[in-house]
């Protein structure tokens, strides 16, 4: 066990998660909310810890099954940021059972810790264990609204699919082990052969489940629709981005796509993911389902960056990931506020929102426009980075598919915006908005606007964090 100390932040987080789980037994039910605060403060503390030691070379290094490098730290930041924001949203989500605050927040933290292990893992064993940690926590989180049949259904489907993809991934790992005699991810150990490649492809499918890439995306809409909204927010951002980080490590740094003839597979998956996500999103009437499909499409754009396989593409993925945290969390936060108030996530719940809550409507509009990639918002910068990386390597058809897809996506994003600004409200019910939601939305919108108009600091940060240790 070399350099175990490098994983101290995630280990501390996991320990804190367990502490919170046990504290649940001690803390009286009336005071259970304090556990949420404890949880987000723990995550924020670890976030600050990693953020402040990011540039410190002594925190980087290679361990037995892991390596901690600027690249992994960057994605740990996005994961923790998402976790903090989602826990804050959870504070304003009335449907969560009060007396299980400890379980809920402990599971969120455990899942986050799993993702942090995942982005640092350089061994298939650790990758698998980390993924299982994330998956099993997420299965429970997705079914947390026990009174809601949709939540149960989504959770069950999520579980079944997760079990299947775990099996596939383990099969891939066994093939990999057969080809190389080790579970360690190192290109030197492996000569490209049919067995190795089959193994890598099966592993890719396992990743595809978490990152919601076609054809492993089927669970997404049901799980997202049923899950409590803060959990949906978390699931749509953190596991996806961390999986992309792991994919970038495995298929970018260790097994370059070009050397293993996987570029075409990646490109086709990217095109399929975008197209399926966008075209199916057009017909959704439930906002959570709509955003679920949109998040599938967004994964497709991200995958372009990996399919390109150049440093520029990887930078694009990092940039877009960071921006994606802001815009998706922002969008879901507003959706949660409106959905909880109206008791329905139907599109019509958004009719005439600007008359009641101009700030919320504008925030949601900014986030949606950013997701659609309309300049001058941050999403445009990210897309531009990724698409220009694709054009520069000659995979311009991917960029064309991406651009056409963003045109299609405008249609359904604008359907929401249209309802907010151009329809009369259907009832006079008040739309209460909690302080934590306001906080989350404010962070997101500032990010979306700031990094769109002035992307300089973000690009500098990304460029400083591209290093991947073997």
């Amino acid at each position, binding site marked *: 066990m070399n350099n175990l100390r490098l994983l101290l932040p995630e280990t501390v987080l996991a320990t804190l998660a367990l502490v919170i789980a046990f504290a649940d037994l001690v803390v009286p039910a009336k005071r259970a909310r304090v556990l949420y605060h404890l949880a987000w403060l723990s995550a924020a503390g670890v976030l600050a810890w990693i953020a402040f030691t990011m540039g410190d070379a002594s925190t980087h290094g290679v361990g037995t099954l892991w390596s901690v490098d600027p690249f992994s730290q960057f994605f740990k930041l996005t994961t923790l940021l998402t976790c903090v924001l989602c826990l804050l949203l959870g504070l304003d989500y009335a449907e969560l059972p009060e007396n299980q605050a400890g379980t809920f927040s402990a599971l969120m933290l455990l899942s986050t810790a799993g993702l942090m292990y995942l982005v640092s893992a350089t061994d298939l064993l650790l990758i698998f264990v980390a993924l299982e940690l994330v998956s099993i926590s997420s299965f429970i989180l997705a079914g947390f609204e026990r009174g809601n049949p949709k939540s149960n259904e989504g959770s069950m*489907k999520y579980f079944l699919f997760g079990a299947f993809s775990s099996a596939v991934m383990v099969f891939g790992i066994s093939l990999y082990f057969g080809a190389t005699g080790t579970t360690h991810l190192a290109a030197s150990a492996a000569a490209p052969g049919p067995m190795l490649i089959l193994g890598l492809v099966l592993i890719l499918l396992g990743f595809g489940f978490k990152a919601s890439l076609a054809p492993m995306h089927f669970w997404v809409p049901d799980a997202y629709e049923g899950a409590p909204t803060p959990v949906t927010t978390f699931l749509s951002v953190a596991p996806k981005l961390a999986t992309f980080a792991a994919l970038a490590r495995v298929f970018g740094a260790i097994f370059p796509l070009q050397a293993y003839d996987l570029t075409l597979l990646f490109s086709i998956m990217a095109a399929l993911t975008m197209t399926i996500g966008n*075209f199916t999103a057009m017909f959704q009437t439930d906002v959570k389902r709509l955003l679920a499909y949109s998040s599938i499409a967004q994964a497709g754009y991200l995958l372009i960056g990996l399919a390109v396989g150049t*440093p520029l593409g990887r930078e694009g993925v990092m940039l877009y990931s960071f921006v994606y945290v802001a815009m998706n969390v922002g969008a879901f936060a507003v959706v949660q506020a409106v959905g909880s108030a109206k008791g329905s996530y139907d599109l019509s719940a958004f009719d005439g929102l600007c008359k009641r809550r101009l700030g919320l409507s504008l925030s949601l509009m900014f986030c949606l426009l950013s997701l659609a990639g309309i300049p*001058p918002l941050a999403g445009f910068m990210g897309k531009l980075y990724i698409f220009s990386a694709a054009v520069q390597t000659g995979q311009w058809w991917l960029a064309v598919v991406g651009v056409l897809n963003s045109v299609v996506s*405008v249609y359904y994003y604008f359907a929401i915006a249209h309802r907010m600004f151009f329809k009369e409200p259907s009832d006079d019910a008040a739309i209460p908005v909690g302080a934590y939601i306001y906080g989350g939305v404010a962070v997101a919108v500032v990010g979306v606007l700031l990094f769109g108009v002035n992307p300089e600091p973000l690009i500098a940060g990304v460029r400083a964090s591209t290093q991947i240790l073997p």
Partner: protein
Amino acid sequence: MIEHAYLIPLIPLAASALMHFGAKEDPHSPAPWIGVVAMAICLGMSLSILSAVASGSVAVPYEHNWPWFSFAASIGGKSFIYDMPVGVLIDGPAAVLLVVVTLVSLMVQIYSIAYMHDDTRYMRYFGFVSFFTASMLGLVVSSNLLVGFMSWELMGLASYLLIGFWFEKDGPTEAQKKAFMTTKLGDSGLYVALLFLFAKVGSFQLTQIHHFYDKGYMPAAAAAAIAIGLLFGAMGKSAQFPLFIWLPDAMEGPTPGSALIHAATMVAAGIFLVSRTYFCFLAAPQVMHAAAWIGCATAFLAAAMALVSYDIKRVLAFSTVSQLGFMMCALGVGGYTAGLFHLTTHAFFKALLFLGAGSVIHSVHTNDLRLMGGLSKKMIVSFFTILAAIAAISGIPFTSGYYSKDMILANIWHSGDRPLFFIMLFTALMTAFYMSRLFILAFWGEARDHEKHHHAHESPFLMTGPLVLLAFLALTSGFMLDRHGLVYKLLPKPTISVMPGEVAREHAPPATLVSATMPAEGGEHAAAPSEAKAEEHAPAHEAAAEHGEHHEGHLPHALHLALPFLVLGSIGFAFFLYKGPDYAAAESLKATFAPVFTVLDRRWYLDDAFDLLVVFCDKVAALAFWIDANVVDRVFVDGWGLLMRIVSEISNLIDALFVDRTVDGFGGLSLDLGVGLRGLVKDGQVQEYLMYVAIAFSLAATLILTR
């Protein structure tokens, strides 16, 4: 003043924010004057910039950049960090456009104060108009195509907001969606072109891209792809065939807003983009040729539709599309100056026509030309100003449209493409016909609907004032710009010295596009092979270019003289058909050629074609949705659950049949064994245990020892 040009888009933007969020909704609020004053300041700045450029007291192109952010780029295997600046680039066309946009917007805003006074969303409207103008101005001044693209998209958003302003009705809601999605489709082409440009050049700076093209570094295939993408973007925004379907519907918005869209902002943006990136087109002659024919098709088809429409705003919308076709065609045949000249003059008379039409609609409360008639007696100012606009758009000698349209036709003539020329000539005559028809139906003769006629009245001064000023410009701007070749000086055609793919070599005669499009002048335009020499010859080169374009700007003498008479003939024909109170001549003609009229009335069935396309896409997506809901959910998710259940049932069965039996069997076996053994071991006496231990041990020992 030119060093503060960056303020020109920012002032209206600030005004827009102020009016939108700062002021309460109140029909008598003085807040719209914020927008008017902001625009007046911008107009003042633009005028001073234009006069400085025209007098030559500042060197154009003027460029100033500020650092924005840096971008990692790798071009040709070398990777470096590229600093993306944000800045202003003012050249002749930009200076002219600044004045046009700010002037038209100012007129529209002043006019709107009276026109919109009883609307419930008064402030919102002015906020949108200022925002719209600000985005257009951003596109005009930007030195960076990326910032230009941002403004371009914001303009799309603004048009969406403005067209759907009266969203309580279904028409505007549909129209705004149609406009936004159609232009967005075009934008995707522009987006791809920008990606290609960045991949090849590594910069979004217009001057750097021009330089790159100028050296002939751009491969021919990439140049063609980029030009196609840019053209596609312009076709969406500037409503070219077949993406023009959105513009006629866009008149669902408030009429002054339409004036803004049709004259100064939205549709001008596409033409301006083509002119701004003209060197990209020069490098791709085939695309330019395509652009010319697209412009021609647009001009003709739209003019034909205008012939039969009875909705005053719709006729004007078709005429805008048709005039945009003229501009695109001019740019396509290399008539850069002519295209931009027409853009300028058109902005004045089209703004005037829309505002005038708004004045008429305001007064008689209908769009239908058949219910008007005889308005000349009631609305004297509107009558004369619209008369001026119609003279200009028809090309009556010495009005502004006469100069610019003449120059366009001359450019087409000199391109040598005779079919193109004759179609465009015919279209120009159609223009005169349908505009006269509109004029006759609305103002001439006797009132057809006495009720409406009785209530008609002249509009207040805030509305007629802008009309008079615009009428003055519609009549004189052509003459002012054409005098002393000012238009050539302000709108000089850009050049590229080397064609794509051919990197300049010392002795190879560079094939320039200028020489390709202008056989007669080719020799003089051959650019110097090396950059140093090019600079040396620059003055001579410019002089030659100027001379060449002057030549291109004139029709052969006979045609030049015949054109006004043809136009007058066309107007006369319109009078003949529509002069009576019930325009019997026109009706009989309509009856004779009913099928033709039906086709035109149905807008060439293009809308139906697009509807079919949309329905088709709808069906495909619905199919995908159905597959998702039924196949995927059923087969993959539910099916997976079912499969799991079946598998577990089977495994249960196997368990029960085999495993359990086996376990039971084993159990039974061990039980039997135990019983047997117990039978052997009688009563648990210790000596017997020991005896067995001894036997076992002796057996083992025997085995070991006998080996």
